[in-house]
Every structure is written in structure tokens, then in C-alpha cells.
């Protein structure tokens, strides 16, 4: 009898060890606030028409000569966005001339963060000398369509005919806090692949960032 119990215990412990190895498959589904998934790699992106800090409205279709866009959801208030500010400018500087300019979109409800108001977006764009449009997603519909959950988040799209196809979703690189310690440049690698006519290797990365503030939530 005692041996029997011992065996059961052994089997149980083995189960515990195995399930911890495989990270337990069942998670708290019902408790998770599931973010809308949004676009997936390979999806055709619906064009948007959003107000830029310059006052004009910007759509992807406006610029007929591009090969695609680096769409960056970012904002003023988030420390992670601030940490990437100059790197976003560097991306535009490097790739706009090669056919992949940056479009920055602020997805946040400005009533939640005064810093993210349209006027403050204008102040930042001017003070930093943004060379790319900085758009406000007032209705937040574009941000929802993309499935943006945090800032900064990058979506690289490639133009094929009149369509824009999603090629990369994720972070800019692998070190938010120290630009000098970066070892993997996700967005640069994606664009370089696209420019060379190759598929994007590593087309999805996860990063930590500031949660998007949705209206009425």
C-alpha cells in the first residue's frame, strides 16, 4: 500500500515537473483582457486619413513614389516613446530616401494625457524637427484596426500595386534604454530585407511599452 502511494506521488510530482517544463498550457483565458488582434502579417492595410501636426490630412496613398512605409504608433507622454524619439527620426533619415518614409501616429485619447494633445504634438514635432508627419488618430479607429496595444509599436508596410501589405509588426530594436547597446535592429533589418527583395526574417517581435489609452475605457 505504501509503495502504491509512493508511486502515485512520484507520478504526480513527475506531472508537476513536466507541466512546469511546458509552462502549463491552460492560462487564465477568462480573466485576460484580450486585445483586439488587428492586422496580421500579409494583410492588406486599409488606408487612413489623419490630421498631421502641420494641419493637413495624410494618407498612405498621398505619396505615389514610395515603396512602403514605416508606421510608428507613438506619443508624447510615454517614456518608452521618448527613449525612441531620435531613433525614429534616424529611421526616417535613413530610409525615406530609399522609399520607406516614417509616418508617426499618436493613438492615445488626449483627454487622458494632456501631454498627448494635438497642440502638444505640434510643439514636439516642431521642437524636435520631425521630418515625417505626426498624425493624431482622433477617432482611434485606425489604431484599433492595426490592433495597437502600446506605444511605441512599429508596422512596416510594403506597397504592391495600389495595396499596402503588412510585413513587420513589433519593436524598433532590442534595447529601449540604451541605443548604444542595441544588438538587433528589427525595423532596419526588415527594411533591408524588403529593399533587397527578400522576405522579412523575424517579422514579429514583442516589446514592453505604454498601454494605449482608449476613449471611454
Amino acid at each position: 500500500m505504501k509503495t502504491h502511494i509512493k508511486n502515485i506521488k512520484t507520478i504526480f510530482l513527475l506531472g508537476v515537473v513536466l507541466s512546469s517544463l511546458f509552462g502549463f498550457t491552460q492560462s487564465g483565458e477568462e480573466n485576460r483582457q484580450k486585445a483586439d488582434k488587428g492586422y496580421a502579417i500579409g494583410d492588406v492595410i486599409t488606408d487612413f486619413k489623419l490630421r498631421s501636426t502641420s494641419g493637413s490630412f495624410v494618407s498612405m496613398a498621398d505619396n505615389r513614389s514610395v515603396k512602403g512605409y514605416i508606421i510608428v504608433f507613438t506619443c508624447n507622454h510615454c517614456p518608452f516613446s521618448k527613449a525612441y524619439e531620435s531613433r525614429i527620426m534616424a529611421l526616417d533619415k535613413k530610409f525615406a530616401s530609399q522609399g520607406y518614409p516614417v509616418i508617426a501616429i499618436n493613438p492615445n485619447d488626449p483627454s487622458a494625457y494632456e501631454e498627448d494633445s494635438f497642440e502638444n504634438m505640434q510643439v514636439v514635432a516642431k521642437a524636435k524637427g520631425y521630418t515625417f508627419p505626426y498624425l493624431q488618430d482622433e477617432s482611434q479607429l485606425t489604431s484599433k484596426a492595426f490592433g495597437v496595444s502600446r506605444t511605441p509599436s512599429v508596422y512596416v508596410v510594403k506597397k504592391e500595386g495600389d495595396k499596402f501589405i503588412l510585413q513587420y509588426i513589433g519593436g524598433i530594436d532590442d534595447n529601449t534604454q540604451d541605443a548604444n547597446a542595441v544588438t538587433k535592429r528589427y525595423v532596419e533589418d526588415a527594411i533591408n530585407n524588403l529593399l533587397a527583395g527578400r522576405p522579412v526574417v523575424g517579422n514579429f517581435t514583442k516589446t514592453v511599452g505604454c498601454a494605449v489609452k482608449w476613449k471611454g475605457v
Partner: protein
Amino acid sequence: MYGTCLGTYGQNRKVEIVKFEHLQKVLNQVSDTTVVLHFWATWCRPCMEELLFFEELSTTYNPQKIKFILVSMDFVKDAETSLKNVIERNKIKSKVVLLDEPDYNSWIDLIDKEWSGTIPATLVLNANLRKRKFYEGKVNMTSFSDELKKMCPVTIQN
């Protein structure tokens, strides 16, 4: 039984700067201590709105039974400034560690595959009870407290 789970304040007020390995060790321990890993940052407003809730919970339970680790995603350069200020101003007694692991993509999935990377996020794990729950975003305080009561472990009898 529930009474044995209640404890006094945790002792550790120092902010340790840790690597992911440190969390992985905690997660891989097969023990009957429930572990609550709560990911937050001082700059994250929703995190700050529920920080004191986690602080209160963590000081309610005996750390031998339910161990809380408040994992700060603040930058290392802010450890002695913003992070320290928040800890002191709010009289945080829970264990706080700053996770210095900037390649987020390398470890987010190891906490939970469904985690998008947005904070706050909370993982509750009990290896012996084979229970694991992951919460992205703020928790519902009532149901989270109730879940935790259920997690308060019972020693396996021979």
C-alpha cells in the same frame, strides 16, 4: 487553514536589479509557495493606480505561502530616482526588483505566450497545485483577491 496563510510584512525594501534568470529560477521552483509576479513601472499610470492594491495583498499573506515580487520595468538609470521615490513615498514593503533585461522579445513569451508586452501584467503560479493564471492589464481587484484565496496552498498529505 486560511489563517496559516496570513503573515506579517515582507522585510525587503531594497530594490534589487535582476536579470531574467532570476525570475526564471523563481518560476521553475517546484514548491507549494504561490508566486505572484507583478510587472509594472513608475511611469505607467494604470500600474500606479493598482500598486497599493498589490502592496496591501502582499503584506496580507505569509510570504512562505504567497510570495509577491513587484517586477519594475523602469530603466536602470531611474532605479535610484523615480523608482526609489515611488517606493518611499508609498511606503512599499513588498519585494521590488528591477528587471534589467532590455531585449523584451527574448523573454516576454517565457512569462506567458499570450502576453503582448503591455503593462501592468500579473502572473500567479503555484507549481504544486498546478495552477497558473496570467492577467494582462489591470486586474479586477475583487476576483483577483478571491482567486488568490483559492491559491493559498494546502500541504499535500502522504
